[in-house]
């Protein structure tokens, strides 16, 4: 009996050693560092990423750190990353498109560090991948809500630049609007800036003056919402729940939920089996979602939106399903045809019902 216990103990101790030595094979603990383009308090893009970081730290127990307001296209990004790596951080997550070229170079320079780039398209075979989300899914749902509340039938959409990501969002939103209000139109105003509250607010005012009673946006500030609030109109925000800026105007918002994705990246790095990919997560993956819908919206509309959400998650509903015509009435998709990812990623046309030009 005693020998059996001794044997068992030996096995336990041996296993323990094995586990410990396994751990020390990795050399160091996994530590994840995040580089943000804006301040964490921006209530938008960067705020959402920082929520994700906090979630990942809680879920994985891994130490995380961040540096905020790091401009694109300067030496700052690489300097911060090197600094983090010197401190033992071995997962680097960059959350702005303009970091891409630096990340490519750094990933080559530090092959033992995992690099994940949000919103880019480049990757390598070993330690550098990219992540983005199918924001068009909740955009479609937010369009359904907007379509149900417009009385004038004109919805303004204040948007930054005519690039596929933004155009895809506008089209998905418009198709959502048409699902609840077939005759409504969406008028797009390009601001040619990601962040200039004075111009964003004035653009919203311009469509409000024209008779729009709902404002949607693809911008980083809440200025459009403040104009909608002042005009007694409604507002679909973006990035995060911005209801505090315009409590009466706020309807809902397509939002980012980065946490689960960050957990997956950190855990893969921890287990040593990170393999780069071009990840384009969906509502089913939880990376994008719809913020709670304002309480004064009709329950029947909420039910319809939730039904559509369930159908999208189940894979039964795809916002870009034919018959689909472009702005000029040319057929893009035949009945029942579903647009493939390549066509969505390069989308440079407006669907029928959008007022404005893509160029």
């Amino acid at each position, binding site marked *: 009996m005693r020998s059996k216990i001794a044997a068992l103990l030996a096995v336990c101790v041996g296993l323990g050693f094995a586990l410990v030595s396994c751990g020390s094979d990795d050399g160091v603990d996994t530590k994840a560092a995040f580089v943000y383009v*804006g*301040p964490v*308090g*921006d*209530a*938008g893009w960067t*705020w959402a990423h920082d929520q994700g970081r906090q979630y990942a730290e809680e879920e994985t127990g891994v130490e995380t750190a961040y540096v905020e*307001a790091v401009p694109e296209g300067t030496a700052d990004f690489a300097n911060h990353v090197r600094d983090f790596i010197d401190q033992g951080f071995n997962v680097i997550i960059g959350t702005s498109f303009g970091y891409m070229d630096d990340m490519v170079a750094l990933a080559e320079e530090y092959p033992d560090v995992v690099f994940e780039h949000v919103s880019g398209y480049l990757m390598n075979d070993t330690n550098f991948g990219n992540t983005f989300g199918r924001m068009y899914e909740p955009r479609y749902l937010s369009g359904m809500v907007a379509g149900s509340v417009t009385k004038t039938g004109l919805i303004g959409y204040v948007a930054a630049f005519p690039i596929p990501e933004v155009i895809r969002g506008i089209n998905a939103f418009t198709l959502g609007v048409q699902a609840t209000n077939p005759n409504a139109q969406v*008028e*797009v*105003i*390009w*601001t*040619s*800036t990601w*962040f*200039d*509250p*004075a*111009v*964003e*607010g*004035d*653009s919203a*005012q*311009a*469509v*409000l*003056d*024209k*008779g729009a009673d709902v404002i949607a946006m693809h911008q980083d*500030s*809440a*200025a459009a919402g*403040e104009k909608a609030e002042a005009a007694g109109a409604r507002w679909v925000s973006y990035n995060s729940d911005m209801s*505090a*800026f315009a409590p009466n105007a706020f309807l809902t918002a397509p939002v980012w939920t980065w946490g689960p994705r960050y957990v997956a990246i950190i855990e893969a790095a921890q287990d040593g089996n990170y393999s780069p990919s071009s990840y384009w997560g969906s509502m089913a993956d939880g990376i994008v979602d719809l913020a709670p819908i304002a309480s004064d919206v009709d329950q029947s509309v909420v039910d319809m939106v939730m039904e559509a959400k369930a159908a999208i998650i189940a894979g039964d509903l795809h916002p870009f399903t034919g018959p689909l015509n472009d702005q000029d009435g040319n057929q893009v998709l035949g009945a029942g045809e579903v647009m493939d990812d390549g066509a969505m990623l390069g989308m440079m046309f407006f669907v029928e019902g959008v007022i*404005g*030009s893509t160029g």
Partner: protein
Amino acid sequence: MNEASLIGLFVATVSFAALLYLAALGELLSEKAGVLNLGVEGMMAIGAVTAFIAGVELGNPWAALAIAMMSGAALASVHGFFTVALGAEQVVSGLSLTILGLGLAAYLGKDYVGQPHGTELVPVEWAGLSDIPWVGPIFFSQSPIVYIAILMGVAVSVVLTNTRIGLALRASGESASSTDSAGHSVLGLRLSAVAAGGALAGASGAYLTLSLTPQWAEGLTAGRGWIAVALVIFGAWKPGRVGWGAILFGGTLALKTRLQTFGVDFSPIILSMLPYVLTLLILLVISVRSRKRPSPAPAGLGFPYRREER
């Protein structure tokens, strides 16, 4: 294009013009006294952030405006100290002021980014006048700061042309040594003009966070301070002409996005370049004309004054 859209265009033109005019008037005062201050963007940012913070903490928009003006004046006085008292290079000091102001504003405002505003200056309703079609919404339903800008324009113009102190101030910008000989303190005149200019730039910044876009975020001023500097040149250092220039530049800002709603297919990027292109053209005209007649710029602009040297 419907009537409301057209009215909206003019409403936005007037409100953008006031934003630019306040800052440009401040720069004009400073330059008239002989001090070029390229720190307008930084002073606007400081005005914007202090107005927002004061608005959140105190809840009184007028107190917020006063604090913004004082902060703008304080920052401008840093420039005044270096360039007027110490005779430092004005371009370098001014550029430093922009960088300092933007950085300081970002630092001060860090905890206020993404917060809803505490207070705002609500548009003034003028009994009877606000309801007049066209004229009412365009001129009589604006933020109080718009009327302050107009009053300031008149005040600056009157002070500069019709008062002894205005004459002395202009003289210190044209010929500091003769102003000194006449018994005026060039140091005092220039420091006051720079501080007053800073206060006006601060008010312009406060207009952003108290009226136009009541929120704070880094980069809120978005280069408007530079347009104000350009406006002074555009307006040939005359308060009235700078005012017309402000309306023109404000109009291009308002038109930039609105052209799209009017169904005009014209690149908003080209429109946003327009103020700068216009300024370059004006500079060209001024420099060509100055071969025949003197430049409208104050003769002593940019030169520090040291009594012993002249």
